[in-house]
Protein backbone atom coordinates (compact mmCIF):
# COMPACT_ATOMS: atom_id res chain seq x y z
CA UNK A 1 0.00 0.00 0.00
CA UNK A 2 2.77 2.41 0.86
CA UNK A 3 4.37 1.61 -2.48
CA UNK A 4 1.50 3.04 -4.46
CA UNK A 5 1.53 6.12 -2.30
CA UNK A 6 5.16 6.71 -2.94
CA UNK A 7 4.78 6.23 -6.66
CA UNK A 8 2.21 8.98 -6.83
CA UNK A 9 4.39 11.38 -4.96
CA UNK A 10 6.81 13.41 -6.85
CA UNK A 11 9.83 13.40 -4.61
CA UNK A 12 13.52 13.09 -4.86
CA UNK A 13 14.94 9.79 -3.82
CA UNK A 14 16.71 11.45 -0.94
CA UNK A 15 13.57 13.11 0.35
CA UNK A 16 11.66 9.91 0.06
CA UNK A 17 14.25 7.92 1.95
CA UNK A 18 14.36 10.51 4.71
CA UNK A 19 10.62 10.36 5.06
CA UNK A 20 10.56 6.61 4.88
CA UNK A 21 12.98 6.29 7.72
CA UNK A 22 10.31 7.65 10.00
CA UNK A 23 7.07 6.91 8.28
CA UNK A 24 7.57 3.30 7.33
CA UNK A 25 7.69 2.53 11.00
CA UNK A 26 4.41 4.15 11.92
CA UNK A 27 2.80 0.77 12.30
CA UNK A 28 5.49 -0.20 14.75
CA UNK A 29 4.64 2.58 17.19
CA UNK A 30 2.41 1.68 20.01
CA UNK A 31 0.46 4.89 19.86
CA UNK A 32 1.40 8.57 20.13
CA UNK A 33 3.07 8.30 23.51
CA UNK A 34 5.39 5.64 22.15
CA UNK A 35 6.15 7.82 19.15
CA UNK A 36 6.92 10.72 21.46
CA UNK A 37 9.22 8.53 23.49
CA UNK A 38 11.06 7.49 20.34
CA UNK A 39 11.34 11.08 19.19
CA UNK A 40 12.58 12.16 22.59
CA UNK A 41 15.54 9.82 22.23
CA UNK A 42 16.87 12.05 19.46
CA UNK A 43 17.39 14.70 22.13
CA UNK A 44 19.84 12.37 23.84
CA UNK A 45 19.19 13.81 27.27
CA UNK A 46 17.77 12.48 30.47
CA UNK A 47 14.04 12.34 30.13
CA UNK A 48 13.79 14.61 33.15
CA UNK A 49 15.58 17.35 31.29
CA UNK A 50 13.82 16.84 28.05
CA UNK A 51 12.54 19.85 26.16
CA UNK A 52 8.87 19.26 25.76
CA UNK A 53 8.63 22.22 23.45
CA UNK A 54 11.18 20.73 21.11
CA UNK A 55 9.45 17.38 21.36
CA UNK A 56 6.10 18.93 20.52
CA UNK A 57 7.64 20.52 17.45
CA UNK A 58 9.18 17.21 16.39
CA UNK A 59 5.88 15.47 16.76
CA UNK A 60 3.97 18.09 14.83
CA UNK A 61 6.57 17.93 12.08
CA UNK A 62 6.13 14.17 11.98
CA UNK A 63 2.38 14.47 11.65
CA UNK A 64 2.81 17.10 8.95
CA UNK A 65 5.10 14.77 7.07
CA UNK A 66 2.70 11.90 7.37
CA UNK A 67 -0.10 14.08 6.03
CA UNK A 68 2.03 15.10 3.09
CA UNK A 69 2.56 11.43 2.34
CA UNK A 70 -1.19 10.94 2.65
CA UNK A 71 -0.49 8.35 5.26
CA UNK A 72 -3.53 7.58 7.29
CA UNK A 73 -2.86 8.28 10.91
CA UNK A 74 -5.01 6.88 13.61
CA UNK A 75 -7.24 9.39 15.34
CA UNK A 76 -5.28 9.32 18.58
CA UNK A 77 -2.16 10.54 16.75
CA UNK A 78 -4.15 13.53 15.56
CA UNK A 79 -5.65 14.16 18.97
CA UNK A 80 -2.15 14.19 20.40
CA UNK A 81 -1.04 16.57 17.66
CA UNK A 82 -3.84 18.98 18.54
CA UNK A 83 -3.03 18.77 22.21
CA UNK A 84 0.67 19.33 21.60
CA UNK A 85 -0.10 22.33 19.40
CA UNK A 86 -2.10 23.74 22.30
CA UNK A 87 0.70 22.95 24.71
CA UNK A 88 3.20 24.59 22.38
CA UNK A 89 1.23 27.79 22.30
CA UNK A 90 0.94 27.78 26.08
CA UNK A 91 4.63 27.28 26.49
CA UNK A 92 5.51 30.01 24.00
CA UNK A 93 3.09 32.66 25.19
CA UNK A 94 3.53 34.38 28.54
CA UNK A 95 1.06 32.98 31.11
CA UNK A 96 -2.26 34.72 31.23
CA UNK A 97 -3.17 35.16 34.92
CA UNK A 98 -6.89 35.34 34.15
CA UNK A 99 -6.91 31.98 32.47
CA UNK A 100 -8.22 28.97 34.34
CA UNK A 101 -6.57 25.59 34.41
CA UNK A 102 -3.02 24.33 34.59
CA UNK A 103 -0.09 26.20 33.20
CA UNK A 104 1.91 25.12 30.19
CA UNK A 105 4.72 24.05 32.53
CA UNK A 106 2.42 21.82 34.52
CA UNK A 107 1.15 20.17 31.38
CA UNK A 108 4.66 19.75 30.07
CA UNK A 109 5.81 18.28 33.37
CA UNK A 110 3.04 15.74 33.27
CA UNK A 111 3.88 14.73 29.73
CA UNK A 112 7.50 14.33 30.77
CA UNK A 113 6.34 12.17 33.67
CA UNK A 114 4.26 10.04 31.36
CA UNK A 115 7.18 9.53 29.04
CA UNK A 116 9.50 8.68 31.86
CA UNK A 117 7.00 6.26 33.33
CA UNK A 118 6.46 4.56 30.01
CA UNK A 119 10.16 4.21 29.51
CA UNK A 120 10.56 2.87 33.04
CA UNK A 121 7.89 0.23 32.34
CA UNK A 122 9.64 -0.69 29.09
CA UNK A 123 12.90 -1.17 30.90
CA UNK A 124 11.20 -3.13 33.64
CA UNK A 125 9.55 -5.35 31.03
CA UNK A 126 12.93 -5.95 29.43
CA UNK A 127 14.48 -6.82 32.77
CA UNK A 128 11.59 -9.12 33.54
CA UNK A 129 11.90 -10.95 30.26
CA UNK A 130 15.66 -11.21 30.73
CA UNK A 131 15.15 -13.18 33.93
CA UNK A 132 15.59 -16.90 33.99
CA UNK A 133 12.26 -18.35 33.02
CA UNK A 134 10.56 -21.55 33.99
CA UNK A 135 10.64 -24.04 31.17
CA UNK A 136 13.46 -22.19 29.45
CA UNK A 137 16.23 -21.65 31.97
CA UNK A 138 15.06 -23.61 34.96
CA UNK A 139 12.70 -26.52 35.08
CA UNK A 140 9.98 -28.09 37.08
CA UNK A 141 9.72 -31.76 37.93
CA UNK A 142 9.35 -33.85 34.80
CA UNK A 143 7.86 -36.97 36.30
CA UNK A 144 4.99 -36.01 38.46
CA UNK A 145 2.81 -38.19 40.56
CA UNK A 146 -0.83 -37.56 40.99
CA UNK A 147 -2.14 -37.31 44.45
CA UNK A 148 -4.59 -40.10 44.69
CA UNK A 149 -7.78 -39.42 46.43
CA UNK A 150 -8.48 -42.42 48.55
CA UNK A 151 -11.87 -42.74 50.03
CA UNK A 152 -11.72 -44.92 53.06
CA UNK A 153 -15.02 -46.14 54.30
CA UNK A 154 -15.45 -47.05 57.89
CA UNK A 155 -18.54 -48.81 59.00
CA UNK A 156 -20.24 -48.20 62.21
CA UNK A 157 -23.07 -49.68 64.16
CA UNK A 158 -24.38 -49.06 67.61
CA UNK A 159 -25.34 -51.52 70.27
CA UNK A 160 -28.92 -50.54 69.62
CA UNK A 161 -28.53 -51.44 65.93
CA UNK A 162 -27.17 -54.77 67.02
CA UNK A 163 -29.98 -55.52 69.45
CA UNK A 164 -32.63 -54.37 67.06
CA UNK A 165 -31.09 -56.53 64.38
CA UNK A 166 -31.18 -59.51 66.66
CA UNK A 167 -34.69 -58.74 67.79
CA UNK A 168 -35.73 -58.55 64.17
CA UNK A 169 -34.45 -62.04 63.45
CA UNK A 170 -35.91 -63.58 66.56
CA UNK A 171 -39.23 -61.88 66.01
CA UNK A 172 -39.34 -63.17 62.50
CA UNK A 173 -38.92 -66.64 63.99
CA UNK A 174 -41.53 -66.22 66.67
CA UNK A 175 -43.93 -64.55 64.40
CA UNK A 176 -43.83 -67.17 61.65
CA UNK A 177 -47.57 -66.79 61.38
CA UNK A 178 -48.82 -70.20 60.35
CA UNK A 179 -46.83 -73.30 59.76
CA UNK A 180 -48.67 -75.86 57.66
CA UNK A 181 -48.53 -79.32 58.98
CA UNK A 182 -47.28 -80.91 55.83
CA UNK A 183 -47.69 -84.43 57.18
CA UNK A 184 -51.41 -84.71 56.34
CA UNK A 185 -51.47 -82.53 53.27
CA UNK A 186 -51.21 -83.80 49.74
CA UNK A 187 -50.56 -81.12 47.17
CA UNK A 188 -51.97 -81.09 43.69
CA UNK A 189 -48.43 -81.20 42.34
CA UNK A 190 -47.75 -84.42 44.19
CA UNK A 191 -50.98 -85.92 42.97
CA UNK A 192 -50.42 -84.79 39.43
CA UNK A 193 -46.98 -86.34 39.33
CA UNK A 194 -48.44 -89.59 40.65
CA UNK A 195 -51.33 -89.68 38.19
CA UNK A 196 -49.26 -88.84 35.14
CA UNK A 197 -47.42 -91.99 35.89
CA UNK A 198 -50.45 -94.19 36.70
CA UNK A 199 -52.75 -92.99 33.92
CA UNK A 200 -50.82 -94.90 31.31
CA UNK A 201 -51.99 -98.15 32.79
CA UNK A 202 -55.69 -97.29 33.07
CA UNK A 203 -57.56 -98.07 29.88
CA UNK A 204 -61.15 -97.94 31.11
CA UNK A 205 -63.29 -95.69 33.35
CA UNK A 206 -61.99 -95.83 36.86
CA UNK A 207 -63.15 -94.11 40.05
CA UNK A 208 -60.65 -91.42 41.00
CA UNK A 209 -60.90 -92.74 44.57
CA UNK A 210 -58.79 -95.68 43.40
CA UNK A 211 -55.95 -93.27 42.57
CA UNK A 212 -55.51 -92.24 46.20
CA UNK A 213 -52.08 -93.22 47.36
CA UNK A 214 -51.76 -96.12 49.71
CA UNK A 215 -52.29 -95.16 53.33
CA UNK A 216 -54.12 -91.95 52.46
CA UNK A 217 -57.57 -93.53 52.34
CA UNK A 218 -57.90 -94.37 56.03
CA UNK A 219 -57.27 -91.20 58.00
CA UNK A 220 -60.20 -88.91 57.11
CA UNK A 221 -58.00 -85.80 57.23
CA UNK A 222 -55.53 -87.36 54.87
CA UNK A 223 -58.23 -88.83 52.66
CA UNK A 224 -59.88 -85.45 52.25
CA UNK A 225 -56.64 -83.78 51.26
CA UNK A 226 -55.69 -86.62 48.93
CA UNK A 227 -59.12 -86.71 47.30
CA UNK A 228 -59.10 -82.97 46.71
CA UNK A 229 -55.58 -83.13 45.30
CA UNK A 230 -56.44 -86.07 43.06
CA UNK A 231 -59.57 -84.36 41.80
CA UNK A 232 -57.71 -81.14 41.07
CA UNK A 233 -54.99 -83.10 39.31
CA UNK A 234 -57.66 -84.94 37.24
CA UNK A 235 -59.13 -81.63 36.11
CA UNK A 236 -55.65 -80.50 35.16
CA UNK A 237 -55.06 -83.66 33.14
CA UNK A 238 -58.46 -83.35 31.46
CA UNK A 239 -57.61 -79.80 30.53
CA UNK A 240 -54.39 -81.03 28.99
CA UNK A 241 -56.45 -83.55 27.03
CA UNK A 242 -54.76 -86.53 28.62
CA UNK A 243 -57.92 -88.01 30.15
CA UNK A 244 -61.71 -87.93 29.94
CA UNK A 245 -63.60 -87.32 33.08
CA UNK A 246 -67.26 -88.01 33.95
CA UNK A 247 -69.74 -88.13 36.80
CA UNK A 248 -73.05 -89.94 36.47
CA UNK A 249 -75.02 -87.75 38.83
CA UNK A 250 -74.50 -85.46 41.80
CA UNK A 251 -72.35 -87.14 44.44
CA UNK A 252 -71.86 -90.15 42.18
CA UNK A 253 -68.27 -91.40 41.89
CA UNK A 254 -66.11 -89.37 39.54
CA UNK A 255 -64.57 -91.56 36.88
CA UNK A 256 -61.66 -90.98 34.60
CA UNK A 257 -60.06 -92.84 31.71
CA UNK A 258 -57.10 -92.34 29.52
CA UNK A 259 -57.93 -90.58 26.29
CA UNK A 260 -56.65 -92.53 23.34
CA UNK A 261 -54.47 -90.61 20.96
CA UNK A 262 -56.72 -89.48 18.17
CA UNK A 263 -56.47 -91.84 15.25
CA UNK A 264 -59.13 -90.57 12.98
Amino acid at each position, binding site marked *: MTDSIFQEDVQTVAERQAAEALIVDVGAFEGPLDLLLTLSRTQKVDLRQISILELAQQYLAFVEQAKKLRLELAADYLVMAAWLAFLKSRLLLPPDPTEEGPSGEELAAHLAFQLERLEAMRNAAAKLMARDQLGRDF*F*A*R*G*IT*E*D*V*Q*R*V*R*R*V*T*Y*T*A*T*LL*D*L*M*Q*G*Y*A*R*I*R*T*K*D*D*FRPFVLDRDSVMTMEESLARMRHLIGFAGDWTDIASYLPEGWDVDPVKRRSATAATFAASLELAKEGKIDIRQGETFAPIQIRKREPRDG
Partner: protein
Amino acid sequence: MAKSNNDSLFEAPPMAEQERMVEAILFATADPVSVLELTGRMPHGCDPAEALAYVRKRYEGRGVNLVKIGDAWAFRTAGDLGFLMQKETIETRKLSRAAIETLAIVAYHQPVTRAEIEEIRGVSVSRGTVDQLIELEWVRIGRRRMTPGRPVTFVVTQGFLDHFGLENARDLPGLKELRAAGLLENRPRPETVVETDEDEDDDQVDLFEDD
Protein backbone atom coordinates in the same frame (compact mmCIF):
# COMPACT_ATOMS: atom_id res chain seq x y z
CA MET B 1 41.12 -38.46 33.12
CA ALA B 2 44.68 -37.68 34.21
CA LYS B 3 45.70 -34.07 33.94
CA SER B 4 48.59 -34.98 31.71
CA ASN B 5 46.11 -35.86 29.05
CA ASN B 6 46.18 -33.72 25.95
CA ASP B 7 42.45 -33.34 26.08
CA SER B 8 42.76 -31.09 29.08
CA LEU B 9 41.38 -28.26 26.98
CA PHE B 10 38.11 -30.13 26.98
CA GLU B 11 38.50 -31.21 30.52
CA ALA B 12 35.30 -32.56 31.94
CA PRO B 13 33.61 -30.59 34.73
CA PRO B 14 34.51 -31.74 38.24
CA MET B 15 32.52 -34.73 39.49
CA ALA B 16 30.52 -32.55 41.90
CA GLU B 17 29.37 -30.52 38.93
CA GLN B 18 28.52 -33.67 37.01
CA GLU B 19 26.45 -34.82 39.95
CA ARG B 20 24.49 -31.58 39.82
CA MET B 21 23.91 -32.07 36.13
CA VAL B 22 22.65 -35.61 36.58
CA GLU B 23 20.38 -34.39 39.34
CA ALA B 24 18.95 -31.63 37.21
CA ILE B 25 18.45 -33.78 34.12
CA LEU B 26 16.80 -36.62 36.00
CA PHE B 27 14.64 -34.19 37.90
CA ALA B 28 13.34 -32.33 34.88
CA THR B 29 13.02 -35.08 32.29
CA ALA B 30 9.60 -36.60 31.84
CA ASP B 31 10.93 -40.13 31.41
CA PRO B 32 13.67 -42.21 32.95
CA VAL B 33 17.01 -41.34 31.32
CA SER B 34 19.57 -43.84 30.13
CA VAL B 35 23.32 -43.45 30.65
CA LEU B 36 23.62 -43.10 26.90
CA GLU B 37 21.24 -40.18 26.86
CA LEU B 38 23.01 -38.57 29.81
CA THR B 39 26.29 -38.85 27.96
CA GLY B 40 24.73 -37.16 24.98
CA ARG B 41 23.37 -34.30 27.02
CA MET B 42 26.23 -33.64 29.40
CA PRO B 43 29.39 -31.83 28.34
CA HIS B 44 32.11 -33.76 26.59
CA GLY B 45 34.21 -35.95 28.82
CA CYS B 46 31.63 -36.44 31.55
CA ASP B 47 31.18 -39.81 33.17
CA PRO B 48 27.45 -40.09 33.87
CA ALA B 49 27.73 -43.62 35.22
CA GLU B 50 30.05 -42.48 37.96
CA ALA B 51 27.99 -39.37 38.64
CA LEU B 52 24.88 -41.53 38.87
CA ALA B 53 26.57 -43.71 41.47
CA TYR B 54 27.28 -40.62 43.58
CA VAL B 55 23.80 -39.26 43.16
CA ARG B 56 22.33 -42.60 44.08
CA LYS B 57 24.39 -42.62 47.23
CA ARG B 58 23.44 -39.05 48.04
CA TYR B 59 19.74 -39.84 47.83
CA GLU B 60 19.95 -43.05 49.80
CA GLY B 61 17.46 -42.90 52.62
CA ARG B 62 16.08 -39.58 51.41
CA GLY B 63 12.47 -38.88 50.55
CA VAL B 64 13.19 -39.58 46.91
CA ASN B 65 15.59 -42.22 45.70
CA LEU B 66 17.43 -42.76 42.47
CA VAL B 67 16.20 -45.99 40.96
CA LYS B 68 17.13 -47.95 37.88
CA ILE B 69 14.29 -48.80 35.55
CA GLY B 70 15.44 -51.12 32.80
CA ASP B 71 18.64 -49.42 31.67
CA ALA B 72 17.41 -45.96 32.55
CA TRP B 73 17.40 -43.94 35.75
CA ALA B 74 14.80 -41.85 37.49
CA PHE B 75 13.98 -40.31 40.84
CA ARG B 76 11.15 -41.99 42.61
CA THR B 77 9.34 -41.37 45.87
CA ALA B 78 10.74 -43.56 48.61
CA GLY B 79 8.53 -46.61 48.97
CA ASP B 80 7.66 -45.94 52.59
CA LEU B 81 6.33 -42.46 51.78
CA GLY B 82 3.78 -43.56 49.21
CA PHE B 83 1.08 -42.76 51.71
CA LEU B 84 1.84 -39.06 51.25
CA MET B 85 0.67 -39.32 47.66
CA GLN B 86 -2.77 -40.12 48.85
CA LYS B 87 -5.30 -37.81 50.23
CA GLU B 88 -7.53 -39.81 52.45
CA THR B 89 -11.07 -38.96 53.02
CA ILE B 90 -12.81 -41.02 55.59
CA GLU B 91 -16.41 -41.75 55.09
CA THR B 92 -18.49 -43.33 57.76
CA ARG B 93 -21.29 -45.56 56.68
CA LYS B 94 -23.85 -47.50 58.57
CA LEU B 95 -23.38 -51.22 58.50
CA SER B 96 -25.85 -52.96 56.23
CA ARG B 97 -28.81 -54.72 57.69
CA ALA B 98 -27.48 -58.12 56.64
CA ALA B 99 -24.16 -57.39 58.30
CA ILE B 100 -25.78 -56.19 61.53
CA GLU B 101 -27.97 -59.25 61.72
CA THR B 102 -25.10 -61.57 61.03
CA LEU B 103 -23.02 -59.78 63.63
CA ALA B 104 -25.85 -60.02 66.13
CA ILE B 105 -26.14 -63.76 65.54
CA VAL B 106 -22.43 -64.27 65.99
CA ALA B 107 -22.54 -62.19 69.17
CA TYR B 108 -25.51 -64.02 70.69
CA HIS B 109 -24.73 -67.52 69.51
CA GLN B 110 -20.97 -67.73 69.31
CA PRO B 111 -19.22 -69.87 68.37
CA VAL B 112 -21.49 -70.27 65.41
CA THR B 113 -21.01 -71.82 61.98
CA ARG B 114 -22.06 -70.28 58.74
CA ALA B 115 -24.78 -72.91 58.36
CA GLU B 116 -26.16 -71.97 61.76
CA ILE B 117 -26.16 -68.28 60.89
CA GLU B 118 -28.10 -69.06 57.75
CA GLU B 119 -30.54 -71.16 59.65
CA ILE B 120 -31.17 -68.44 62.19
CA ARG B 121 -31.44 -65.64 59.65
CA GLY B 122 -33.52 -67.80 57.34
CA VAL B 123 -31.53 -66.64 54.33
CA SER B 124 -28.14 -67.54 53.03
CA VAL B 125 -25.27 -65.39 54.21
CA SER B 126 -23.10 -64.02 51.48
CA ARG B 127 -19.39 -64.54 51.89
CA GLY B 128 -18.93 -60.79 51.63
CA THR B 129 -20.97 -60.14 54.74
CA VAL B 130 -18.84 -62.31 56.97
CA ASP B 131 -15.67 -61.09 55.27
CA GLN B 132 -16.69 -57.53 55.97
CA LEU B 133 -17.18 -58.27 59.64
CA ILE B 134 -13.81 -60.01 59.76
CA GLU B 135 -12.21 -57.06 58.03
CA LEU B 136 -13.75 -54.71 60.55
CA GLU B 137 -12.12 -56.93 63.14
CA TRP B 138 -15.39 -57.45 64.90
CA VAL B 139 -15.61 -61.14 64.04
CA ARG B 140 -12.87 -63.70 63.81
CA ILE B 141 -12.67 -67.39 63.07
CA GLY B 142 -12.92 -69.54 66.17
CA ARG B 143 -12.28 -73.22 66.69
CA ARG B 144 -13.59 -75.73 64.22
CA ARG B 145 -16.77 -77.47 65.26
CA MET B 146 -16.21 -81.16 66.08
CA THR B 147 -19.01 -82.27 63.80
CA PRO B 148 -18.91 -83.87 60.36
CA GLY B 149 -17.18 -81.56 57.91
CA ARG B 150 -15.49 -79.82 60.86
CA PRO B 151 -16.98 -76.44 59.90
CA VAL B 152 -15.25 -73.27 61.09
CA THR B 153 -17.03 -71.23 63.71
CA PHE B 154 -17.19 -67.50 64.11
CA VAL B 155 -16.79 -65.57 67.33
CA VAL B 156 -16.71 -61.88 68.16
CA THR B 157 -13.45 -60.14 68.96
CA GLN B 158 -12.16 -57.86 71.67
CA GLY B 159 -12.50 -55.09 69.10
CA PHE B 160 -16.19 -55.82 68.90
CA LEU B 161 -16.55 -55.63 72.66
CA ASP B 162 -14.61 -52.35 72.71
CA HIS B 163 -16.67 -50.83 69.96
CA PHE B 164 -19.95 -51.72 71.57
CA GLY B 165 -18.76 -50.98 75.06
CA LEU B 166 -19.24 -54.49 76.39
CA GLU B 167 -17.22 -56.28 79.01
CA ASN B 168 -18.00 -59.56 77.35
CA ALA B 169 -20.56 -60.96 74.99
CA ARG B 170 -22.64 -62.33 77.84
CA ASP B 171 -23.46 -58.74 78.74
CA LEU B 172 -25.59 -58.55 75.64
CA PRO B 173 -29.17 -58.21 76.74
CA GLY B 174 -31.21 -61.37 76.48
CA LEU B 175 -34.50 -61.66 74.71
CA LYS B 176 -36.34 -60.83 77.91
CA GLU B 177 -34.51 -57.55 78.27
CA LEU B 178 -34.95 -56.82 74.62
CA ARG B 179 -38.63 -57.28 75.04
CA ALA B 180 -38.64 -55.12 78.17
CA ALA B 181 -36.85 -52.47 76.20
CA GLY B 182 -39.59 -52.62 73.65
CA LEU B 183 -37.34 -54.09 71.03
CA LEU B 184 -39.31 -57.28 70.81
CA GLU B 185 -42.90 -56.40 70.35
CA ASN B 186 -44.14 -59.85 69.47
CA ARG B 187 -44.71 -63.09 71.31
CA PRO B 188 -41.40 -64.63 72.15
CA ARG B 189 -40.64 -68.26 71.88
CA PRO B 190 -37.69 -68.44 74.19
CA GLU B 191 -37.35 -72.21 73.88
CA THR B 192 -36.11 -71.96 70.34
CA VAL B 193 -33.16 -69.95 71.43
CA VAL B 194 -31.98 -72.24 74.10
CA GLU B 195 -32.60 -75.76 72.85
CA THR B 196 -29.43 -76.33 70.90
CA ASP B 197 -27.54 -73.68 72.70
CA GLU B 198 -26.72 -75.63 75.83
CA ASP B 199 -23.44 -77.01 74.51
CA GLU B 200 -22.56 -73.85 72.80
CA ASP B 201 -23.09 -71.87 75.91
CA ASP B 202 -20.42 -73.94 77.55
CA ASP B 203 -18.15 -73.26 74.64
CA GLN B 204 -18.94 -69.67 74.89
CA VAL B 205 -17.95 -69.48 78.48
CA ASP B 206 -14.71 -71.23 77.65
CA LEU B 207 -14.08 -68.85 74.92
CA PHE B 208 -14.49 -65.77 76.95
CA GLU B 209 -12.43 -67.17 79.75
CA ASP B 210 -9.70 -67.89 77.28
CA ASP B 211 -9.75 -64.35 76.16
